[in-house]
């Protein structure tokens, strides 16, 4: 058996997939000459790949899904719609805060109103923030079926 430095077995996959450089592929060929267990592993990986590649899954008819391709106009109108809604929300919120602040009522009435509106609003914002945090950090690593 020829002496060789430690062989990186993942090169077998690269060899099978034709993703190696010439030098790496030559190294694999030399290794395979002396290592029947690696030859067998390569054969098995090749059989698995062949079986996978020739598996034809049935695709539903076109009418089973509705991809609804959107043209530039519908995209633009959707964005404009969202922008207007957000603008409206900002104006209404601003007016409400102004009205609350300048209303000629006692301070405890204002505090009560603020608590009634502010409580659910804070809860909503905290849930929203949690959801955004989950979405933005490590989204898929913990997903196991």
């Amino acid at each position, binding site marked *: 058996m020829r002496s060789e430095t430690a062989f990186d077995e993942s090169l077998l996959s690269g060899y099978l997939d034709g993703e190696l450089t010439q030098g790496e592929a030559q190294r694999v060929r030399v290794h395979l000459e002396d290592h029947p267990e690696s030859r067998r592993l390569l054969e098995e990986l090749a059989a698995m790949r062949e079986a996978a590649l020739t598996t034809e899954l049935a695709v539903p008819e076109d009418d089973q899904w509705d*991809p609804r391709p959107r043209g530039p106009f519908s995209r633009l109108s959707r964005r404009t719609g969202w922008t207007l809604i957000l603008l409206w929300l900002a104006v209404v919120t601003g007016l409400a805060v102004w009205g609350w602040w300048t209303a000629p009522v006692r301070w405890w009435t204002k505090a009560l109103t603020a608590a009634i509106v502010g409580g659910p609003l804070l809860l909503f914002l905290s849930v929203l923030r949690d959801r955004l945090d989950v979405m933005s950090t490590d989204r898929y690593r913990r997903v196991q079926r």
Partner: protein
Amino acid sequence: MTTGQAGGADLVVLAKGGDREALDELARRAGPKAYGFALQLLRNREDALDVTQEALVSFFDHLDRFDEARQLDPWLLSIVRNQAYDFLRRRKVRAAESLDELLEQGVALPAGQAPSAFDRVERDELRARLWRALGELSSEHREILVLRDYQDLSYLQIAEVLGIPKGTVMSRLHRARRALRDLLRAGGGFGNDTEASRDHAQ
């Protein structure tokens, strides 16, 4: 060039310009590709259809962000992948279906490649075992195997879909293949069977 002959990136250029035919053609091409990948990840037709719907809507919504210098398939598949994992987090998945229920019936092989009845049975059995074993792998291993061995993406394209360096693809893929091979051996003696039958034939 007609829309039917155009490549994926060309179609996107046409579609961005408002060409309705190009949009339809993109939908025709993207739909089956997205569905196939979703089905391989989720292993259930209903779930795969739901995810395909969401992925296609997202795909067309963000079409104007697509860089035409890139290839379309990795981009599409990365959208499907994200939608599939969001789906897994949000909802309880339905039971996996067997390969028999999902297979395309009556697929014709090119002339001269038709296997003998024995080969066909053996190959069908290996495919079914592979499908079952695939369901037992971690999602990390399953997705890389599906991208390479079922979707036939290059290492560079896989790196793009998974957002990992190209150098990591080979090692992760090999670990996944070994894990799958070990499951096959444990489940039905994949390696032992092939060797035994070869010895027997000799």
